[in-house]
């Protein structure tokens, strides 16, 4: 019997998905720079923020994944 899915698992999945999308977009922009970049674009916030979200999301997804009880 499966236990109820924790809210923290949902949070993990959301952050994991967002981290992946934003990180990949940041890497893409390394090779295809924007024509109209935002301020401080040189800091590549999409890469490190995306990586942070991805790692946080992965941690929560694994820690709170539904298990059989």
């Amino acid at each position, binding site marked *: 019997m499966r236990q109820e899915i924790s809210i923290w698992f*949902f*949070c993990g999945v*959301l*952050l994991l998905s967002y981290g992946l*999308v*934003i990180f990949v*977009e940041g890497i893409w922009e390394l090779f295809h720079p*924007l024509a109209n970049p935002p301020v401080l*674009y040189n800091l590549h916030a*999409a890469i490190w923020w995306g990586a942070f979200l991805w790692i946080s999301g992965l941690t929560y997804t694994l820690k709170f994944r539904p298990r059989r009880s």
Partner: protein
Amino acid sequence: MDRLIGFSNLLAAVPTAHQLTHLNGVDILIIVIYFAIVIFIGFYLKGASTTSEEFFMAGREMTAWIAGLSFVSANLGSLELMGWAAAAYQYGILATHWYWIGAIPAMLFLGIVMMPFYYISKTHSVPGYLHLRYGEGARALSAITFAAMTVLMSGINMYSMALVMKVVLGWDLNFSIWVSSVTVAAYVALGGLRSAIYNEVLQFILIWVGALLVPILGLIEVGGWSNLQARIVTNLGRTDYVHLWSTLGHFSSNPMGVHWTGIVFGLGFVVSFGYWTTDFLVVQRVLSADNIRSARLAPIIGAAFKMAVPFIVILPGLLAITVLPFHLVGESVAVATGQHSYNEALPLMLVRYCSPGLLGLGVTALIAGFMSGMAGNVSAFSTVWTYDIYGAFLNRKATDKHYVAMGRWSTLVGVMISIGTAYLVQNAPSIMDYVQALFSFFIAPLFGTVILGMLWKRATKQAGFWGLLAGTLTSIGLWAWVRLDPSALRYVALSPDAKDMAENMYRALWAWIACVIVTVVISYMTAPRPVEELEGLVYGVSPLPEEHDEHWYQRPVVWAGVVFGLFIVLNVIFW
């Protein structure tokens, strides 16, 4: 409480011809992922909301962390975020008072003093507590006004949010209104309070990860907090934008036109305590806690996070003063001249720093903030309607299954009334000001009625009803007086230099005092209730259940002390 004042600036907004930015495919993907997860949660939790206790109270199974984050998230609407970022641009760091003294003491008071009575009385709502303590009259008055005002406010929030999406992204008003409200209706009607709470926690996380980059990158750009302060002083040629307390000695010595007595007694005591301890929209989240210890800890956890919110709201407003290459203006000037308004401060900062993907995350945070506020409104409306109006006066003997069905239908009806209000406001914008004012009339007196009921066993049924009514009428009377004769503001707010903010605070203070005086006088004129009837409702009448913590540092009161200590330190630092 703060959302009422916070988005008042936004309400005068009208659609402008330009849009700030547009989203690309990655941004759209971010938004679609969010909606997919939110809807999935609603369907997933449908099976866990089959009894009234599950549907309206989330089965009273929420942990302290979930109840605490939901408690603060229900208040953290996107209009609150943008409204207070705008206020920070307009008034400086003074806007932080609505997050600190205007919230923290009241939240801690709720957790330490009031929560045990709400919890052990097993009430399902604040009007429900009034019923147990004062009888049907006070319950009917508070339930009807709360239910009506909640759905109207929800509609106004909805319209204002759609307007923001039009200004920022060029989205059609109808599209924004219908997509967001149908989504909220679906997940609240399906999963009840549990679904609303789950989504509020999700939205709270999203708001932080979506908005946190702006202050981080902003501080990097200006070279830290000290440089930011120096640049604000240089740009504006005045120092009162960067001090919390030192400019409050006189109404005319600060940009907000307020006095420290109004901030401390009006905002910090009456308005704040009224909102955070008696507005069922937020109290309902804490009532869902799984035991009394969680119920006491939840507001304390919420207070800790609330104290950090100025970092993602006030700081972007202050940064906008220094980094934007143009000046923001009031709505009427913005409409007439095509300039950007104060209310665009936060979206402008998002656009300034966020590349594709990050921009989608920021916009999703705004949408999430809006939806959490709306879900809070409709779930609270559904509960009060079903328990305190329908179940109390229209159909007392229905089955539990019937009440759950009524809860689902009233959720849908609440959303439809909200949508109707949104379209009504679109055609008659002045309605917004009146509804806002109406909502504010009930908060301060309700706090007087509830706190006397909890702490004073002599308060009687008749006194509860007439005190609440007297306080409400006092508030309405003072409001009408200033509208008819603007010079009356000097009497209501005690100074000819007072401005609108000061009026709100002092009006609340007078309404609360009127409520308390009438309640006390009528209590002494009427027969008291037998003490045995007050068991579990009033301080000193029945012992509170003992909590057994293994260690001293696990006690809620210790953590409340830690949060309050930090609150004092922050106020001193930014004095």
